[in-house]
């Protein structure tokens, strides 16, 4: 989960990373109670990048201009996302701008420190000067100093920038983050450092042990548990629900190979949750079907469920339960269901589903072909 800039900066502040005086603006009228002296910067708080170029960042000199700018920014979508909040922040005179980040490298399975003496919005220049240091063992501050020296820093900047990287790493590891990024880190003429913009990505699986982050997360829209993935595509009329990401991808591929068009797909999740029970699996199937059929473009639903913990019959009864509760509306929409189940009690499942006129297959490709056929007719 991506935090917004103002949330990231609040974490920076807690860690002792210097940030500018700032104030959260929920409504343009909040600017009348502004405690920061002008001139200020108003920044759209959206998760997507490129807000600067899109006009989501404005410098203003007084309250009248600020309120007008805030109104504009609140009504300006960035890559389709409207801000709910703006950040009003003091201006800062940087002489240099650096890029700093802490991430996990999945291949070497270790955290990596990244730094570039060319921070800011020019990503290409940043990338050209990027340096990295792998944190091989338990972290110690010398890793941070290594990065600063690799970046080419000298004298006092070695220690002041190292101290920022240390604090970033502490944040990264204490809060189980996927990413901590400061871009740019402003360096003043006197050599002081200031985190001017920041990005923090929280690890969804670790949220349970960070209640303060979980609270931020609860304010955001995504309500799916981390083991589920739902992807909405732009066109198509087939909805897919499968269990397991690999199986979902394989099914998606087969539908496309058969010239079918997919409206959306959902991974219902594997069965490796420590507290998974037959009941929770059935619940997931029903909730999943609800989610993928919300899209009115959908004419055909293909369920591909490989039953290991539960029997085919139990999976079928979950489909049945969903179907019966919404029978009328589903018929109105002329929504076709195709099911593919493998595992125990296939015959019982078949009985169940045939009563609902839902074709059930054991063979995956047959199921896919039937779904595509039905979709083409629709």
């Amino acid at each position, binding site marked *: 989960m991506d935090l917004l800039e103002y949330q990231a900066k609040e974490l920076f502040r807690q860690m002792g990373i210097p940030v500018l005086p700032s104030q959260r603006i929920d409504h343009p009228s909040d600017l009348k109670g502004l405690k920061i002296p002008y001139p200020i910067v108003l920044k759209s708080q959206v998760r997507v990048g490129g807000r600067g170029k899109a006009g989501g960042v404005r410098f203003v000199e007084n309250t009248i201009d600020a309120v007008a700018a805030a109104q504009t920014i609140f009504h300006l979508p960035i890559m389709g996302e409207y801000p709910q909040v703006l950040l009003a922040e003091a201006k800062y005179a940087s002489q240099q701008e650096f890029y700093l980040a802490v991430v996990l490298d999945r291949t070497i399975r270790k955290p990596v420190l990244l730094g570039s003496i060319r921070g800011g919005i020019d990503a290409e220049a940043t990338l050209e000067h990027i340096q990295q240091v792998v944190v091989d063992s338990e972290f110690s501050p010398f890793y941070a100093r290594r990065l600063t020296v690799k970046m080419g820093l000298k004298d006092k900047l070695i220690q002041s920038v190292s101290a920022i990287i240390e604090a970033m790493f502490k944040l990264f590891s204490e809060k189980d983050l*996927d*990413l901590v990024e400061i871009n740019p880190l402003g360096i003043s003429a006197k050599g002081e450092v200031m985190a001017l913009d920041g990005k923090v990505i929280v690890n969804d699986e670790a949220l349970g042990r960070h209640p303060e982050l979980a609270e931020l997360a609860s304010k955001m829209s995504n309500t799916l548990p981390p083991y589920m993935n739902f*992807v909405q595509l732009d066109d198509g009329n087939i909805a897919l629900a499968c269990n397991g990401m690999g199986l979902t*991808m394989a099914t998606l591929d087969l539908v496309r190979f058969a010239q079918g068009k997919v409206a959306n797909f959902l991974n219902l999740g594997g069965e490796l949750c*420590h507290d998974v029970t037959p009941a929770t699996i059935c619940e997931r199937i029903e909730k999943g079907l609800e989610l993928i059929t919300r899209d009115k473009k959908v004419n055909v639903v293909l369920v591909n469920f490989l039953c290991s913990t539960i029997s085919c019959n139990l999976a079928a009864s979950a489909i049945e339960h969903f179907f019966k509760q919404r029978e009328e509306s589903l018929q109105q929409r002329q929504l076709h269901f195709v099911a593919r189940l493998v595992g125990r009690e296939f015959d019982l499942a078949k009985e169940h589903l045939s009563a609902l006129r839902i074709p059930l297959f054991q063979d*995956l490709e047959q199921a896919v072909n039937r779904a595509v056929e039905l979709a083409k007719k629709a």
Partner: protein
Amino acid sequence: MNLKADSKVLIQGIMQPLGTTHAALMKAYGTNIVAGVSPGSGGQTLHEIPVFDLVEQALWHVGAVDASVIFEPPYLVLDAALEAIAAGIRQIAIITEGIPPLDMVRLVRSAETTDTLLLGPNCPGIIIPGKILLGTHPAEFYTPGSVGLISRSSTLTYEIARELTQAGLGQSLGVGLGSDAIMGSSFPQWLQILDEDDKTEVIVLVGEIGGACEEAAARYIAEAIDKPVIAYIAGYHAPKGKTLGHAGAIISSQVADLGADVGTAESKIAAFREAKIPVAERPSEIPELVKKILKKSAHKKK
């Protein structure tokens, strides 16, 4: 890897719903489960398996074990695995999903220092058909044979095993590495194991999109693996630019991303083709490719 039909196996988190379910299935398969561990439940028995509060305590009672399978809740897995390592267990499969990546970083470091074979997390474990089951592979999809199956998935692995079995191709070993960002063991480790395994004649590698481990595996096969390998990658039609699955949870920032193409099915398939490894387009194609290869090598043997 050192697993035989009579290898002694410990189950950590045996009182968790997932552990309880699969302890029964593993035992039914014939796996020699000698003890379970579940702190606070010591002294009980489950499916005739004695349960202890500590790994140490379990080992006092049943002697050294060959492997531990962990079903503890995600935030307790790191501790359970470290406990197993401290007690001298050197083969560990973590089944549970939802383990924070930084826990895995610490665990991998500990496993490396102690030369522990770590599998998972979020994986179906290991099955040697007809002999032993450590994890959640559904027994009915597998049959003994000579195809070594390595995968990052769980249900997709079962699907492929089922395709092979239905085509009359048994398996020497089925292993799921897990699809999390930080994996306890990697494709090269298991390719090596299968390359050295007498029972295995051909290796099927099932990959997923995301990460770069299939690309690395392709290079490793070209360099170090003598047995024939065929590959299958799901996600050819996955929408680009979306992070999918746990694998996508750890993203590098835009700047850190070293080449945007890495991680796509195209990139992975290209890597396999470059390494002259046949790539199946769909699960049903896998048995055909395996048969072709087996025929060829049978021919050579003559």
